[in-house]
């Protein structure tokens, strides 16, 4: 089984805030991490390798510093890591991002046939969940998003039986591979780094591919290849401040009485 896992380096968004006074994004000093969902995609690929043999290749598209994301997954024991980095990639929306990653997967596939592509459910910064479906469509692979269980793999028939999570339950599907899946955190528990792998990771060098290495055309990347553009950023809107009903501390009964009066008056209740 040869799996290619796509991981993204993201700011730890739980710490990104808009300064209410200046209305600007407070991002300096926010640490970078591997998108949490993608760690579970890496784990899923490693598990399949443990069970069926094969290989795990991890790719990330980003600036040179994104190599740190690859170093992190190297400590888990992945076989090959590739950084896709080029000025021309900057400013890509999800359509262009899926193009760049697809070009890379095609190149990997030409050297060593790919059975499975794994992505996270979504990146916690962009939050779109669109890159996985984009890559699958471009590669003409069956797509299953929100995977919560991988039940079995039939290496003879080349099928995977799995479950995807939907609003009010799960759907069980049997899918021919090569295929692409996007995974949820509930799929598995990410393993700990082993000491030998940690040592390997300290001295490792990721392969770096630029636009020419993957034969990517300018018109499909960056701003030219991106139909969408972010045109405005602002703090989440707050509702208009309502009415404070006094005496809640010293006379709760009066406050509650006044509240109920208002609700009845406005026919809310």
């Amino acid at each position, binding site marked *: 089984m040869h799996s290619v896992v796509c991981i993204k380096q993201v700011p730890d*968004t739980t710490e*990104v805030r808009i300064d209410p006074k*200046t209305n600007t*994004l407070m991002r*300096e000093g926010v640490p970078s991490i591997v998108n949490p969902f993608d760690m579970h995609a890496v784990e899923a690929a490693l598990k399949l390798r443990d069970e069926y043999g094969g290989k795990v290749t991890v790719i990330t598209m980003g600036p040179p510093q994104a190599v740190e994301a690859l170093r992190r997954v190297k400590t888990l024991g992945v076989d090959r890591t590739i950084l896709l980095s080029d*000025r021309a990639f*900057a*400013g890509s*929306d999800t*359509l262009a991002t899926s193009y760049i990653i697809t070009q890379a997967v095609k190149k990997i596939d030409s050297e060593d046939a790919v059975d499975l592509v794994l992505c996270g459910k979504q990146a*916690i910064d962009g*939050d*779109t*969940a*669109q890159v*996985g*479906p*984009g890559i*699958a*469509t471009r590669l003409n692979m069956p*797509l*299953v*998003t*929100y995977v919560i269980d991988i039940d079995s793999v039939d290496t003879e028939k080349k099928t995977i039986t799995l479950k995807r*999570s*939907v*609003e009010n*339950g799960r*759907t*069980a*599907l049997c899918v021919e591979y090569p*295929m692409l899946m996007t995974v949820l955190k509930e799929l598995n528990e990410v393993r700990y780094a082993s000491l030998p792998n940690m040592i390997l990771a300290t001295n490792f060098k990721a392969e770096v591919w630029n636009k020419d290495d993957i034969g990517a055309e300018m018109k499909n990347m*960056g*701003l030219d290849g*991106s*139909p*969408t*553009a*972010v045109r*405005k*950023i602002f*703090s*989440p809107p*707050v*509702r208009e*401040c*309502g*009415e*404070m009903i006094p005496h*809640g*501390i010293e006379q*709760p009964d009066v*406050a*509650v009485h006044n*509240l*109920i009066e*208002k*609700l009845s008056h406005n026919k*809310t*209740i």
Partner: protein
Amino acid sequence: MGYVHIKKEKCIGCEQCVVVCPFEALFMKDGIVEVIPDKCKECRKCLPACPTEALYLERRERRGQRPEHGIDVTVDLPPELARYKGVWVMVEQQDGTPHSVSWELMGEGLKISQKLGVELSAVVLGENVDGIRREAFQYGAQNVYVIDDPVLKDYRTYPYTFAMTKLVNKHKPEILLMGATSLGRDLAGAVATSLKTGLTADCTKLDVDEAARVLLQTRPAFGGNIMATILCANHRPQMSTVRPRVMSRPYKDESRDGTPIVEQLGLAEEKIRTKFIEFIPDAVAHVVNLDDADIIVAGGRGVGCDEGFSVLKELAEVLGAELGASRAAVEAGWIDYEHQVGQTGKTVRPKIYFACGISGAIQHLVGMQNSDVIIAINNDPNAAIFSVATYGIVGDMHKIVPELIKQFKDKKNK
């Protein structure tokens, strides 16, 4: 010589300026743009590229006139795309039951189609979808496109993408909206890629620039900490997925009906590499129904303990309400996850939302701020929840909630 300056706190690292700079004077460092002063020729190309106005030149800064929505919209559409007309809503269904977000989108789609002076159409895909087709007319569709085929019985990406792409290529709508559900986000991502058009994810607000016929799509990003307005000016259709329970459901006119436009799928089951095995419903899904509750009584860390929730439960029973909770209360183990409201829980839109002992963190607010009336009870007068409350009471919830129970009971008995 001067050079462009950067307000680092405003930079979101989108790299749009880096790309437009003809002199390679800008580069990314730790997710934030930096300038190489010697290379900058003050050509100003980067200034309009920045969505947050993080770049500026000293002294000579100018400000242009901007329309009311604050965004300059310029369009350069190839003639074949300018012919795309009309607003489409995808009606999502499972086993013949439509998802309520589809009807919410019909309401929103109607507003947009009226502003643009075009028709509102619904798309219904599935097997035996006659009833849903009729409902689509009742919720205001002027046309309903239908593909009714056994292959479409249960949702699978490929056949649905095939069907939707076929309809769009044939009938050419300028806008296509879907619910931001597990089905909608899966399908929209695949359809947009096969159509090579733009897609905006999980929108919470839609507006339209009538002159340019461009959709202004607003969505949360960075885990709800910021909002972004996104345009797809030069590709058609403009596609968005829209979060459920943010828009209101329109009036249903039971007397309406119409003749659907029926198309054939033309895809054999053998061509599909994904087989549907079964649907396994959640055991608890029907027990907690925050989606349809008119009133929700929610508690947070301020509830303090398990027993605190029994008191809230009593209030909920008196009011015929459902119980909600903040993540802090769920994590404390006082109440099940099924009750959690917010970014990683449910988005709700009841007529009345009682927030008791909830501070009002942004991740909680995004899940409930569209409620019609919000009543906040908190002992901290500075709690953020008061900024979204219709009515606020500062006080100890352990005194106020029992008082609410007592007085609502009295009122009921009268």
